[in-house]
Protein backbone atom coordinates (compact mmCIF):
# COMPACT_ATOMS: atom_id res chain seq x y z
CA UNK A 1 0.00 0.00 0.00
CA UNK A 2 2.85 2.38 0.80
CA UNK A 3 4.03 2.59 -2.79
CA UNK A 4 0.52 3.51 -3.86
CA UNK A 5 0.30 6.36 -1.36
CA UNK A 6 3.70 7.65 -2.42
CA UNK A 7 2.55 7.61 -6.03
CA UNK A 8 -0.56 9.41 -5.02
CA UNK A 9 1.31 12.10 -3.17
CA UNK A 10 3.59 12.62 -6.14
CA UNK A 11 0.64 12.87 -8.45
CA UNK A 12 -1.00 15.48 -6.30
CA UNK A 13 2.20 17.45 -6.15
CA UNK A 14 2.51 17.30 -9.93
CA UNK A 15 -1.07 18.45 -10.29
CA UNK A 16 -0.50 21.40 -8.01
CA UNK A 17 2.62 22.31 -9.94
CA UNK A 18 0.68 22.23 -13.20
CA UNK A 19 -2.01 24.43 -11.72
CA UNK A 20 0.60 26.97 -10.69
CA UNK A 21 2.15 26.90 -14.14
CA UNK A 22 -1.24 27.62 -15.60
CA UNK A 23 -1.78 30.57 -13.33
CA UNK A 24 1.70 31.81 -14.10
CA UNK A 25 1.21 31.35 -17.82
CA UNK A 26 -1.68 33.72 -17.76
CA UNK A 27 0.31 36.44 -16.07
CA UNK A 28 3.37 35.89 -18.20
CA UNK A 29 1.54 36.17 -21.47
CA UNK A 30 2.63 39.16 -23.51
CA UNK A 31 -0.02 41.84 -23.61
CA UNK A 32 -0.92 41.03 -27.21
CA UNK A 33 -1.48 37.37 -26.30
CA UNK A 34 -3.63 37.93 -23.24
CA UNK A 35 -7.26 37.06 -23.90
CA UNK A 36 -9.35 40.13 -24.50
CA UNK A 37 -12.27 40.96 -22.23
CA UNK A 38 -14.74 39.99 -24.96
CA UNK A 39 -13.22 36.53 -25.43
CA UNK A 40 -13.29 36.02 -21.68
CA UNK A 41 -16.95 36.97 -21.41
CA UNK A 42 -17.95 34.73 -24.30
CA UNK A 43 -16.03 31.81 -22.86
CA UNK A 44 -17.60 32.17 -19.44
CA UNK A 45 -21.07 32.46 -20.98
CA UNK A 46 -20.50 29.27 -23.01
CA UNK A 47 -19.28 27.41 -19.96
CA UNK A 48 -22.17 28.55 -17.79
CA UNK A 49 -24.82 27.79 -20.43
CA UNK A 50 -23.39 24.30 -20.86
CA UNK A 51 -23.33 23.80 -17.09
CA UNK A 52 -26.97 24.84 -16.94
CA UNK A 53 -27.88 22.29 -19.61
CA UNK A 54 -26.13 19.45 -17.77
CA UNK A 55 -27.33 20.27 -14.28
CA UNK A 56 -30.84 21.57 -14.93
CA UNK A 57 -32.53 18.12 -15.22
CA UNK A 58 -30.90 17.03 -11.96
CA UNK A 59 -32.05 20.20 -10.24
CA UNK A 60 -35.57 19.71 -11.56
CA UNK A 61 -35.61 16.10 -10.37
CA UNK A 62 -34.63 17.22 -6.86
CA UNK A 63 -37.46 19.76 -6.79
CA UNK A 64 -39.94 17.29 -8.28
CA UNK A 65 -39.06 14.62 -5.71
CA UNK A 66 -40.82 16.69 -3.04
CA UNK A 67 -44.11 17.09 -4.88
CA UNK A 68 -47.44 15.30 -4.91
CA UNK A 69 -49.03 14.43 -8.28
CA UNK A 70 -51.32 17.47 -8.20
CA UNK A 71 -48.48 19.77 -7.22
CA UNK A 72 -46.42 18.41 -10.14
CA UNK A 73 -49.04 19.69 -12.55
CA UNK A 74 -50.23 22.76 -10.73
CA UNK A 75 -47.15 24.48 -9.33
CA UNK A 76 -44.03 26.15 -10.67
CA UNK A 77 -41.69 23.40 -11.81
CA UNK A 78 -38.61 25.34 -10.82
CA UNK A 79 -39.31 25.67 -7.12
CA UNK A 80 -40.74 23.70 -4.19
CA UNK A 81 -44.51 23.63 -3.93
CA UNK A 82 -44.53 24.16 -0.17
CA UNK A 83 -42.63 26.49 2.12
CA UNK A 84 -39.20 25.41 3.28
CA UNK A 85 -40.60 24.67 6.75
CA UNK A 86 -43.06 22.10 5.39
CA UNK A 87 -40.46 20.44 3.22
CA UNK A 88 -39.57 17.60 5.62
CA UNK A 89 -43.24 16.56 5.68
CA UNK A 90 -43.48 16.65 1.89
CA UNK A 91 -40.34 14.53 1.62
CA UNK A 92 -41.59 12.06 4.22
CA UNK A 93 -44.92 11.63 2.49
CA UNK A 94 -43.28 11.03 -0.91
CA UNK A 95 -40.88 8.59 0.69
CA UNK A 96 -43.83 6.66 2.14
CA UNK A 97 -45.50 6.67 -1.29
CA UNK A 98 -42.31 5.39 -2.87
CA UNK A 99 -42.04 2.50 -0.42
CA UNK A 100 -45.72 1.75 -1.03
CA UNK A 101 -45.32 1.56 -4.82
CA UNK A 102 -42.25 -0.62 -4.51
CA UNK A 103 -44.04 -2.92 -2.05
CA UNK A 104 -41.30 -2.21 0.46
CA UNK A 105 -38.64 -3.50 -1.92
CA UNK A 106 -36.94 -0.22 -2.69
CA UNK A 107 -33.88 -0.64 -0.48
CA UNK A 108 -33.71 -4.28 -1.44
CA UNK A 109 -33.30 -3.13 -5.06
CA UNK A 110 -30.58 -0.70 -4.13
CA UNK A 111 -28.83 -3.46 -2.20
CA UNK A 112 -29.17 -5.79 -5.21
CA UNK A 113 -27.60 -3.15 -7.46
CA UNK A 114 -24.74 -2.77 -5.00
CA UNK A 115 -24.21 -6.55 -4.90
CA UNK A 116 -24.34 -6.98 -8.69
CA UNK A 117 -22.06 -4.05 -9.37
CA UNK A 118 -19.67 -4.67 -6.48
CA UNK A 119 -19.16 -8.39 -7.00
CA UNK A 120 -18.92 -8.33 -10.77
CA UNK A 121 -16.59 -5.34 -10.69
CA UNK A 122 -14.32 -7.02 -8.13
CA UNK A 123 -14.09 -10.30 -10.07
CA UNK A 124 -13.89 -8.49 -13.39
CA UNK A 125 -11.07 -6.25 -12.22
CA UNK A 126 -8.89 -9.13 -11.02
CA UNK A 127 -9.55 -11.09 -14.21
CA UNK A 128 -8.85 -8.08 -16.42
CA UNK A 129 -5.61 -7.20 -14.64
CA UNK A 130 -4.40 -10.82 -14.77
CA UNK A 131 -5.11 -11.06 -18.47
CA UNK A 132 -3.68 -7.62 -19.17
CA UNK A 133 -0.51 -8.42 -17.26
CA UNK A 134 -0.13 -11.81 -18.94
CA UNK A 135 -0.43 -10.39 -22.44
CA UNK A 136 1.78 -7.42 -21.66
CA UNK A 137 4.67 -9.31 -20.07
CA UNK A 138 4.66 -12.87 -21.38
CA UNK A 139 4.85 -14.47 -24.78
CA UNK A 140 2.70 -17.45 -25.52
CA UNK A 141 1.26 -19.06 -28.58
CA UNK A 142 -1.91 -17.45 -29.92
CA UNK A 143 -1.33 -14.30 -27.89
CA UNK A 144 -1.80 -11.89 -30.75
CA UNK A 145 -4.87 -13.73 -31.96
CA UNK A 146 -6.36 -13.57 -28.46
CA UNK A 147 -5.68 -9.83 -28.20
CA UNK A 148 -7.22 -9.30 -31.63
CA UNK A 149 -10.39 -11.19 -30.75
CA UNK A 150 -10.82 -9.31 -27.46
CA UNK A 151 -10.26 -5.95 -29.15
CA UNK A 152 -12.78 -6.84 -31.86
CA UNK A 153 -15.28 -7.62 -29.11
CA UNK A 154 -14.71 -4.16 -27.67
CA UNK A 155 -16.21 -2.77 -30.88
CA UNK A 156 -19.02 -5.29 -30.89
CA UNK A 157 -22.41 -4.05 -29.75
CA UNK A 158 -22.55 -5.87 -26.42
CA UNK A 159 -26.32 -5.65 -26.12
CA UNK A 160 -26.66 -7.98 -29.11
CA UNK A 161 -25.06 -10.70 -26.99
CA UNK A 162 -27.71 -10.46 -24.32
CA UNK A 163 -30.24 -12.58 -26.17
CA UNK A 164 -27.97 -15.59 -26.75
CA UNK A 165 -26.66 -15.18 -23.21
CA UNK A 166 -30.22 -15.45 -22.02
CA UNK A 167 -30.75 -18.65 -24.02
CA UNK A 168 -27.60 -20.23 -22.61
CA UNK A 169 -28.33 -19.25 -19.03
CA UNK A 170 -31.88 -20.45 -19.50
CA UNK A 171 -30.77 -23.89 -20.62
CA UNK A 172 -28.45 -24.02 -17.58
CA UNK A 173 -31.41 -23.05 -15.34
CA UNK A 174 -29.52 -19.98 -14.22
CA UNK A 175 -31.98 -17.31 -15.29
CA UNK A 176 -33.69 -15.40 -12.52
CA UNK A 177 -30.68 -15.83 -10.24
CA UNK A 178 -28.07 -13.34 -9.13
CA UNK A 179 -25.43 -15.21 -11.11
CA UNK A 180 -27.23 -14.49 -14.38
CA UNK A 181 -26.38 -10.82 -13.94
CA UNK A 182 -23.03 -11.12 -12.21
CA UNK A 183 -21.36 -13.52 -14.65
CA UNK A 184 -21.94 -11.57 -17.90
CA UNK A 185 -20.95 -8.32 -16.17
CA UNK A 186 -17.61 -9.74 -15.01
CA UNK A 187 -16.14 -9.63 -18.47
CA UNK A 188 -15.08 -6.37 -19.98
CA UNK A 189 -12.88 -6.06 -23.05
CA UNK A 190 -12.40 -2.42 -22.09
CA UNK A 191 -11.15 -3.51 -18.65
CA UNK A 192 -8.71 -5.86 -20.33
CA UNK A 193 -7.52 -3.04 -22.57
CA UNK A 194 -6.93 -0.75 -19.60
CA UNK A 195 -5.21 -3.52 -17.61
CA UNK A 196 -2.87 -4.18 -20.51
CA UNK A 197 -2.02 -0.53 -21.04
CA UNK A 198 -1.27 -0.06 -17.34
CA UNK A 199 0.78 -3.24 -17.05
CA UNK A 200 2.86 -2.16 -20.04
CA UNK A 201 3.52 1.28 -18.63
CA UNK A 202 3.85 0.78 -14.90
CA UNK A 203 5.40 -2.67 -14.31
CA UNK A 204 9.13 -2.42 -15.06
CA UNK A 205 10.73 -5.56 -16.54
CA UNK A 206 13.82 -5.08 -14.36
CA UNK A 207 11.74 -5.48 -11.23
CA UNK A 208 10.30 -8.78 -12.46
CA UNK A 209 13.78 -10.00 -13.40
CA UNK A 210 15.14 -9.11 -9.99
CA UNK A 211 12.29 -10.92 -8.24
CA UNK A 212 12.84 -14.01 -10.40
CA UNK A 213 16.56 -14.02 -9.62
CA UNK A 214 15.65 -13.85 -5.94
CA UNK A 215 13.65 -17.02 -6.47
CA UNK A 216 10.11 -15.70 -6.25
CA UNK A 217 7.50 -17.81 -8.03
CA UNK A 218 5.42 -16.26 -10.79
CA UNK A 219 2.29 -16.42 -8.65
CA UNK A 220 4.06 -14.69 -5.79
CA UNK A 221 5.43 -12.02 -8.10
CA UNK A 222 1.95 -11.35 -9.41
CA UNK A 223 0.21 -11.17 -6.05
CA UNK A 224 2.85 -9.33 -4.05
CA UNK A 225 4.49 -7.05 -6.61
CA UNK A 226 2.35 -6.62 -9.69
CA UNK A 227 -0.97 -6.15 -7.94
CA UNK A 228 0.57 -3.50 -5.73
CA UNK A 229 2.02 -1.61 -8.65
CA UNK A 230 -1.29 -1.81 -10.45
CA UNK A 231 -3.43 -0.78 -7.48
CA UNK A 232 -4.37 2.66 -8.84
CA UNK A 233 -5.16 1.09 -12.22
CA UNK A 234 -7.35 -1.47 -10.52
CA UNK A 235 -9.41 1.24 -8.87
CA UNK A 236 -10.01 2.78 -12.28
CA UNK A 237 -11.06 -0.52 -13.86
CA UNK A 238 -13.25 -1.29 -10.86
CA UNK A 239 -15.02 2.05 -11.28
CA UNK A 240 -15.73 1.50 -14.95
CA UNK A 241 -17.06 -1.99 -14.39
CA UNK A 242 -19.13 -0.88 -11.40
CA UNK A 243 -20.86 1.89 -13.31
CA UNK A 244 -21.33 -0.27 -16.41
CA UNK A 245 -23.14 -2.91 -14.35
CA UNK A 246 -25.14 -0.36 -12.38
CA UNK A 247 -26.34 1.27 -15.60
CA UNK A 248 -27.06 -1.97 -17.47
CA UNK A 249 -30.75 -2.27 -18.11
CA UNK A 250 -31.30 -4.78 -20.89
CA UNK A 251 -29.51 -7.64 -19.13
CA UNK A 252 -31.56 -7.60 -15.90
CA UNK A 253 -34.68 -6.91 -17.94
CA UNK A 254 -34.16 -10.23 -19.72
CA UNK A 255 -32.61 -12.31 -16.98
CA UNK A 256 -34.54 -11.48 -13.84
CA UNK A 257 -38.24 -11.61 -13.13
CA UNK A 258 -38.65 -11.88 -9.35
CA UNK A 259 -39.31 -8.66 -7.55
CA UNK A 260 -36.68 -9.36 -4.92
CA UNK A 261 -33.88 -9.86 -7.46
CA UNK A 262 -34.35 -6.65 -9.41
CA UNK A 263 -31.66 -3.99 -9.49
CA UNK A 264 -32.88 -0.48 -8.83
CA UNK A 265 -32.99 0.57 -12.52
CA UNK A 266 -35.28 -2.32 -13.40
CA UNK A 267 -37.45 -1.67 -10.36
CA UNK A 268 -37.96 1.96 -11.31
CA UNK A 269 -38.72 0.95 -14.89
CA UNK A 270 -41.34 -1.43 -13.56
CA UNK A 271 -43.00 1.52 -11.85
CA UNK A 272 -43.11 3.83 -14.89
CA UNK A 273 -44.30 1.12 -17.21
CA UNK A 274 -47.44 0.58 -15.12
CA UNK A 275 -50.35 2.23 -16.87
CA UNK A 276 -51.88 3.29 -13.56
CA UNK A 277 -48.74 4.95 -12.24
CA UNK A 278 -49.18 8.61 -11.33
CA UNK A 279 -46.84 9.44 -8.44
CA UNK A 280 -44.10 11.04 -10.48
CA UNK A 281 -42.71 12.94 -7.51
CA UNK A 282 -42.20 9.77 -5.50
CA UNK A 283 -40.56 8.16 -8.52
CA UNK A 284 -38.14 11.07 -8.83
CA UNK A 285 -37.22 10.53 -5.20
CA UNK A 286 -36.55 6.87 -5.94
CA UNK A 287 -34.46 7.83 -8.96
CA UNK A 288 -32.34 10.20 -6.89
CA UNK A 289 -31.87 7.79 -3.99
CA UNK A 290 -31.03 5.08 -6.50
CA UNK A 291 -28.19 6.99 -8.14
CA UNK A 292 -26.75 8.31 -4.90
CA UNK A 293 -24.18 5.49 -4.45
CA UNK A 294 -22.79 6.05 -7.95
CA UNK A 295 -22.60 9.80 -7.45
CA UNK A 296 -20.70 9.30 -4.21
CA UNK A 297 -18.24 7.03 -6.02
CA UNK A 298 -17.89 9.63 -8.73
CA UNK A 299 -17.13 12.56 -6.55
CA UNK A 300 -14.94 10.60 -4.16
CA UNK A 301 -12.74 8.97 -6.78
CA UNK A 302 -12.79 11.57 -9.49
CA UNK A 303 -9.12 11.52 -10.38
CA UNK A 304 -9.18 7.78 -11.10
CA UNK A 305 -11.70 8.46 -13.83
CA UNK A 306 -9.40 10.92 -15.42
CA UNK A 307 -6.39 8.65 -15.38
CA UNK A 308 -8.44 5.85 -16.96
CA UNK A 309 -9.77 8.08 -19.68
CA UNK A 310 -6.29 9.47 -20.23
CA UNK A 311 -4.90 5.99 -20.88
CA UNK A 312 -7.67 5.36 -23.40
CA UNK A 313 -7.20 8.70 -25.08
CA UNK A 314 -3.44 8.66 -25.43
CA UNK A 315 -3.29 5.07 -26.60
CA UNK A 316 -6.23 5.45 -28.93
Amino acid at each position, binding site marked *: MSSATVNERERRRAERRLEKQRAAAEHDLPRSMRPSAAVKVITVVVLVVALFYFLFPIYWAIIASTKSPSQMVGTNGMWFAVGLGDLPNAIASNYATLLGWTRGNFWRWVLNSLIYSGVSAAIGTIAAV*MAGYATAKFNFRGKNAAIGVIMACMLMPAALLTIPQYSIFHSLHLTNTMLSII*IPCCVSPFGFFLGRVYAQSSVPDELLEAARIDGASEARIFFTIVLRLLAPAMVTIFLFLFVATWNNFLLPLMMVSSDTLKPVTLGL*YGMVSLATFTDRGALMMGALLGVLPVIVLFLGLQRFWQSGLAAGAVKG
Partner: protein
Amino acid sequence: MAPFAILFAFVFILPIGWAVYSSFFRQIAEGGGAYGGGKLVNKFVGLQNFQYAITSADFWTGVGHVLVYTVIQVPVMIIAALALAMVVDSFVVKHVTGFRLGYFLPYAIPGVVASIIWVYLYNGQISPIVKGLAAIGINVDFFADNVVLLSMANITTWTFTGYNMLIFLAALQAIPHDLYEAARIDGANGWQIAMKIKLPNVRGAALLAMLLSIVGTIQLFNEPQIMATADPGISKSYTPMMMALNTSQGTLTPSGDGPASAIAIVMALIAGVLAMLYTLAERKVNE
Protein backbone atom coordinates in the same frame (compact mmCIF):
# COMPACT_ATOMS: atom_id res chain seq x y z
CA MET B 1 -4.85 -15.12 -18.23
CA ALA B 2 -6.84 -18.28 -17.71
CA PRO B 3 -9.71 -16.94 -15.56
CA PHE B 4 -10.33 -14.12 -17.97
CA ALA B 5 -10.13 -16.46 -20.93
CA ILE B 6 -12.70 -18.83 -19.42
CA LEU B 7 -15.10 -16.04 -18.50
CA PHE B 8 -14.54 -14.41 -21.85
CA ALA B 9 -15.27 -17.62 -23.70
CA PHE B 10 -18.41 -18.18 -21.66
CA VAL B 11 -19.76 -14.66 -21.97
CA PHE B 12 -18.65 -13.66 -25.47
CA ILE B 13 -17.55 -16.58 -27.65
CA LEU B 14 -20.16 -19.13 -26.60
CA PRO B 15 -23.11 -16.74 -27.05
CA ILE B 16 -21.82 -15.70 -30.47
CA GLY B 17 -21.62 -19.34 -31.46
CA TRP B 18 -25.03 -20.01 -29.98
CA ALA B 19 -26.53 -17.06 -31.83
CA VAL B 20 -25.16 -18.26 -35.15
CA TYR B 21 -26.30 -21.82 -34.47
CA SER B 22 -29.80 -20.96 -33.27
CA SER B 23 -30.36 -18.53 -36.13
CA PHE B 24 -30.81 -21.56 -38.39
CA PHE B 25 -33.62 -22.96 -36.28
CA ARG B 26 -37.14 -21.97 -35.51
CA GLN B 27 -39.40 -23.25 -32.75
CA ILE B 28 -42.66 -24.61 -34.07
CA ALA B 29 -45.44 -26.59 -32.52
CA GLU B 30 -45.34 -30.30 -33.19
CA GLY B 31 -47.92 -31.39 -35.67
CA GLY B 32 -47.54 -28.36 -37.85
CA GLY B 33 -50.62 -26.31 -37.00
CA ALA B 34 -50.08 -22.87 -35.61
CA TYR B 35 -52.23 -23.70 -32.60
CA GLY B 36 -51.48 -27.39 -32.68
CA GLY B 37 -50.98 -27.48 -28.96
CA GLY B 38 -48.14 -29.97 -29.38
CA LYS B 39 -44.88 -29.38 -27.61
CA LEU B 40 -42.47 -26.97 -29.23
CA VAL B 41 -39.67 -28.49 -31.24
CA ASN B 42 -36.67 -26.92 -32.88
CA LYS B 43 -36.78 -27.25 -36.60
CA PHE B 44 -33.90 -26.53 -38.93
CA VAL B 45 -35.08 -23.81 -41.28
CA GLY B 46 -31.88 -22.92 -43.10
CA LEU B 47 -31.66 -19.26 -43.95
CA GLN B 48 -35.36 -18.55 -43.44
CA ASN B 49 -34.73 -16.49 -40.30
CA PHE B 50 -32.26 -14.30 -42.14
CA GLN B 51 -34.65 -14.02 -45.02
CA TYR B 52 -37.31 -12.91 -42.56
CA ALA B 53 -35.05 -10.27 -40.99
CA ILE B 54 -33.77 -8.91 -44.30
CA THR B 55 -37.16 -8.72 -45.98
CA SER B 56 -39.01 -7.36 -42.96
CA ALA B 57 -40.13 -3.79 -43.49
CA ASP B 58 -40.20 -3.24 -39.72
CA PHE B 59 -36.57 -4.24 -39.46
CA TRP B 60 -35.45 -1.73 -42.07
CA THR B 61 -37.61 0.99 -40.56
CA GLY B 62 -35.82 0.27 -37.29
CA VAL B 63 -32.43 0.37 -39.00
CA GLY B 64 -33.48 3.66 -40.57
CA HIS B 65 -34.32 5.09 -37.15
CA VAL B 66 -30.95 4.04 -35.80
CA LEU B 67 -29.03 5.41 -38.78
CA VAL B 68 -30.76 8.79 -38.71
CA TYR B 69 -30.21 8.88 -34.99
CA THR B 70 -26.51 8.07 -35.35
CA VAL B 71 -25.94 10.58 -38.13
CA ILE B 72 -27.43 13.37 -36.02
CA GLN B 73 -26.46 12.44 -32.49
CA VAL B 74 -22.85 11.30 -32.77
CA PRO B 75 -21.42 14.36 -34.61
CA VAL B 76 -23.35 16.78 -32.40
CA MET B 77 -22.10 15.10 -29.25
CA ILE B 78 -18.48 14.74 -30.38
CA ILE B 79 -18.26 18.32 -31.62
CA ALA B 80 -19.85 19.65 -28.43
CA ALA B 81 -17.52 17.56 -26.29
CA LEU B 82 -14.50 18.69 -28.30
CA ALA B 83 -15.51 22.34 -28.09
CA LEU B 84 -16.07 22.15 -24.34
CA ALA B 85 -12.76 20.36 -23.84
CA MET B 86 -10.96 23.08 -25.82
CA VAL B 87 -12.60 25.84 -23.80
CA VAL B 88 -11.88 24.15 -20.50
CA ASP B 89 -8.29 23.50 -21.57
CA SER B 90 -7.68 27.05 -22.77
CA PHE B 91 -5.98 29.52 -20.51
CA VAL B 92 -8.85 31.95 -20.78
CA VAL B 93 -10.70 30.91 -17.65
CA LYS B 94 -9.28 29.82 -14.32
CA HIS B 95 -10.95 27.43 -11.84
CA VAL B 96 -12.46 25.02 -14.32
CA THR B 97 -12.73 22.06 -11.92
CA GLY B 98 -16.34 22.85 -11.04
CA PHE B 99 -17.36 23.01 -14.69
CA ARG B 100 -15.55 19.79 -15.49
CA LEU B 101 -17.31 17.97 -12.69
CA GLY B 102 -20.71 19.39 -13.58
CA TYR B 103 -20.40 18.29 -17.20
CA PHE B 104 -19.35 14.79 -16.21
CA LEU B 105 -22.06 14.31 -13.60
CA PRO B 106 -24.81 13.10 -16.01
CA TYR B 107 -22.63 10.09 -16.84
CA ALA B 108 -23.27 8.88 -13.28
CA ILE B 109 -27.00 8.79 -13.94
CA PRO B 110 -28.08 5.42 -15.37
CA GLY B 111 -29.60 5.64 -18.86
CA VAL B 112 -32.94 4.45 -17.53
CA VAL B 113 -33.11 7.14 -14.86
CA ALA B 114 -31.90 9.84 -17.26
CA SER B 115 -34.58 8.77 -19.73
CA ILE B 116 -37.29 8.88 -17.07
CA ILE B 117 -36.26 12.40 -15.98
CA TRP B 118 -36.17 13.66 -19.57
CA VAL B 119 -39.48 12.00 -20.47
CA TYR B 120 -41.01 14.03 -17.64
CA LEU B 121 -39.24 17.15 -18.88
CA TYR B 122 -40.81 16.53 -22.31
CA ASN B 123 -44.26 16.13 -20.78
CA GLY B 124 -46.43 19.18 -21.48
CA GLN B 125 -48.38 18.83 -18.24
CA ILE B 126 -45.48 18.99 -15.82
CA SER B 127 -42.43 20.24 -17.69
CA PRO B 128 -41.16 23.74 -16.96
CA ILE B 129 -39.44 23.65 -20.38
CA VAL B 130 -42.62 23.04 -22.38
CA LYS B 131 -44.57 25.49 -20.23
CA GLY B 132 -41.84 28.13 -20.45
CA LEU B 133 -41.63 27.84 -24.23
CA ALA B 134 -45.41 28.00 -24.50
CA ALA B 135 -45.41 31.18 -22.41
CA ILE B 136 -43.23 32.91 -25.00
CA GLY B 137 -45.36 31.61 -27.83
CA ILE B 138 -43.47 28.49 -28.90
CA ASN B 139 -45.48 25.31 -28.72
CA VAL B 140 -43.40 22.19 -29.00
CA ASP B 141 -44.45 18.59 -28.79
CA PHE B 142 -41.39 16.53 -27.93
CA PHE B 143 -43.29 13.35 -28.74
CA ALA B 144 -44.40 14.35 -32.25
CA ASP B 145 -43.48 11.73 -34.83
CA ASN B 146 -40.72 13.73 -36.47
CA VAL B 147 -39.35 15.15 -33.22
CA VAL B 148 -39.26 12.08 -31.01
CA LEU B 149 -35.97 10.84 -32.46
CA LEU B 150 -34.35 14.18 -31.63
CA SER B 151 -35.79 14.00 -28.13
CA MET B 152 -34.08 10.65 -27.69
CA ALA B 153 -30.84 11.93 -29.18
CA ASN B 154 -30.88 14.71 -26.62
CA ILE B 155 -31.01 12.19 -23.76
CA THR B 156 -27.96 10.33 -25.05
CA THR B 157 -26.12 13.58 -25.74
CA TRP B 158 -26.86 14.80 -22.23
CA THR B 159 -25.49 11.60 -20.69
CA PHE B 160 -22.31 11.12 -22.71
CA THR B 161 -21.02 14.55 -23.74
CA GLY B 162 -19.19 15.07 -20.45
CA TYR B 163 -17.63 11.62 -20.64
CA ASN B 164 -16.26 12.28 -24.11
CA MET B 165 -15.16 15.72 -23.04
CA LEU B 166 -12.97 14.17 -20.34
CA ILE B 167 -11.39 11.86 -22.92
CA PHE B 168 -10.54 14.82 -25.13
CA LEU B 169 -9.37 16.84 -22.17
CA ALA B 170 -6.95 14.06 -21.23
CA ALA B 171 -5.63 13.99 -24.80
CA LEU B 172 -5.26 17.78 -24.85
CA GLN B 173 -3.35 17.80 -21.60
CA ALA B 174 -0.92 15.24 -22.96
CA ILE B 175 0.25 17.71 -25.62
CA PRO B 176 3.68 19.03 -24.65
CA HIS B 177 3.48 22.68 -23.68
CA ASP B 178 6.66 23.58 -25.57
CA LEU B 179 4.58 23.33 -28.72
CA TYR B 180 2.37 26.19 -27.55
CA GLU B 181 5.34 28.30 -26.60
CA ALA B 182 7.00 27.72 -29.94
CA ALA B 183 3.78 28.66 -31.72
CA ARG B 184 3.45 31.81 -29.64
CA ILE B 185 6.97 32.90 -30.46
CA ASP B 186 6.08 32.40 -34.11
CA GLY B 187 3.19 34.79 -33.52
CA ALA B 188 0.22 32.41 -33.47
CA ASN B 189 -2.84 33.59 -31.57
CA GLY B 190 -5.01 31.47 -29.28
CA TRP B 191 -7.46 30.55 -32.03
CA GLN B 192 -4.67 29.45 -34.37
CA ILE B 193 -3.09 27.36 -31.63
CA ALA B 194 -6.43 25.67 -31.00
CA MET B 195 -7.02 24.90 -34.67
CA LYS B 196 -3.50 24.06 -35.85
CA ILE B 197 -2.00 22.34 -32.81
CA LYS B 198 -4.68 21.13 -30.44
CA LEU B 199 -7.17 19.82 -32.97
CA PRO B 200 -4.76 17.63 -34.97
CA ASN B 201 -3.33 16.22 -31.74
CA VAL B 202 -6.64 14.88 -30.46
CA ARG B 203 -7.60 13.30 -33.75
CA GLY B 204 -6.78 9.79 -32.56
CA ALA B 205 -8.90 10.17 -29.44
CA ALA B 206 -11.72 11.66 -31.50
CA LEU B 207 -11.66 8.74 -33.93
CA LEU B 208 -11.88 6.21 -31.11
CA ALA B 209 -14.66 8.10 -29.34
CA MET B 210 -16.57 8.41 -32.61
CA LEU B 211 -16.24 4.71 -33.33
CA LEU B 212 -17.36 3.68 -29.83
CA SER B 213 -20.28 6.12 -30.00
CA ILE B 214 -21.43 4.66 -33.33
CA VAL B 215 -21.26 1.17 -31.87
CA GLY B 216 -23.20 2.45 -28.87
CA THR B 217 -26.00 3.96 -30.91
CA ILE B 218 -26.39 0.81 -33.02
CA GLN B 219 -27.71 -0.92 -29.91
CA LEU B 220 -30.09 1.92 -29.10
CA PHE B 221 -32.54 0.47 -26.63
CA ASN B 222 -32.92 2.15 -23.22
CA GLU B 223 -34.14 5.52 -24.45
CA PRO B 224 -36.83 4.27 -26.85
CA GLN B 225 -37.92 1.60 -24.39
CA ILE B 226 -38.54 4.25 -21.70
CA MET B 227 -40.00 6.76 -24.17
CA ALA B 228 -42.46 4.07 -25.21
CA THR B 229 -43.99 4.14 -21.72
CA ALA B 230 -45.06 7.72 -22.41
CA ASP B 231 -45.58 7.61 -26.16
CA PRO B 232 -47.70 4.88 -27.76
CA GLY B 233 -46.27 5.93 -31.13
CA ILE B 234 -43.07 4.04 -30.36
CA SER B 235 -43.66 0.51 -31.54
CA LYS B 236 -42.18 -2.74 -30.31
CA SER B 237 -39.83 -2.77 -33.26
CA TYR B 238 -38.85 0.91 -33.14
CA THR B 239 -35.17 -0.02 -33.12
CA PRO B 240 -33.67 -3.36 -34.19
CA MET B 241 -32.59 -4.01 -30.60
CA MET B 242 -36.16 -3.61 -29.35
CA MET B 243 -37.36 -5.79 -32.19
CA ALA B 244 -34.85 -8.50 -31.29
CA LEU B 245 -35.84 -8.43 -27.62
CA ASN B 246 -39.56 -8.55 -28.30
CA THR B 247 -39.08 -11.31 -30.86
CA SER B 248 -37.17 -13.45 -28.41
CA GLN B 249 -39.75 -12.83 -25.68
CA GLY B 250 -42.56 -13.83 -27.97
CA THR B 251 -44.41 -10.50 -28.22
CA LEU B 252 -43.71 -10.27 -31.96
CA THR B 253 -44.16 -13.01 -34.53
CA PRO B 254 -42.37 -15.04 -35.75
CA SER B 255 -40.97 -15.40 -32.27
CA GLY B 256 -38.24 -17.33 -30.55
CA ASP B 257 -34.48 -17.31 -30.41
CA GLY B 258 -33.96 -18.12 -34.07
CA PRO B 259 -35.43 -15.00 -35.66
CA ALA B 260 -34.11 -12.88 -32.75
CA SER B 261 -30.60 -14.21 -33.30
CA ALA B 262 -30.86 -13.55 -37.01
CA ILE B 263 -31.77 -9.92 -36.29
CA ALA B 264 -28.88 -9.59 -33.84
CA ILE B 265 -26.41 -11.06 -36.32
CA VAL B 266 -27.52 -8.82 -39.17
CA MET B 267 -27.17 -5.82 -36.83
CA ALA B 268 -23.69 -6.92 -35.74
CA LEU B 269 -22.69 -7.20 -39.39
CA ILE B 270 -24.08 -3.74 -40.15
CA ALA B 271 -22.17 -2.36 -37.15
CA GLY B 272 -18.98 -4.02 -38.32
CA VAL B 273 -19.36 -2.68 -41.85
CA LEU B 274 -20.07 0.83 -40.55
CA ALA B 275 -17.04 0.73 -38.26
CA MET B 276 -14.84 -0.46 -41.11
CA LEU B 277 -16.14 2.14 -43.55
CA TYR B 278 -15.56 4.81 -40.97
CA THR B 279 -11.99 3.73 -40.30
CA LEU B 280 -11.23 3.55 -44.02
CA ALA B 281 -12.72 6.97 -44.66
CA GLU B 282 -10.72 8.42 -41.79
CA ARG B 283 -7.53 6.89 -43.16
CA LYS B 284 -8.22 8.32 -46.62
CA VAL B 285 -8.74 11.76 -45.16
CA ASN B 286 -5.51 11.50 -43.21
CA GLU B 287 -3.44 10.65 -46.24
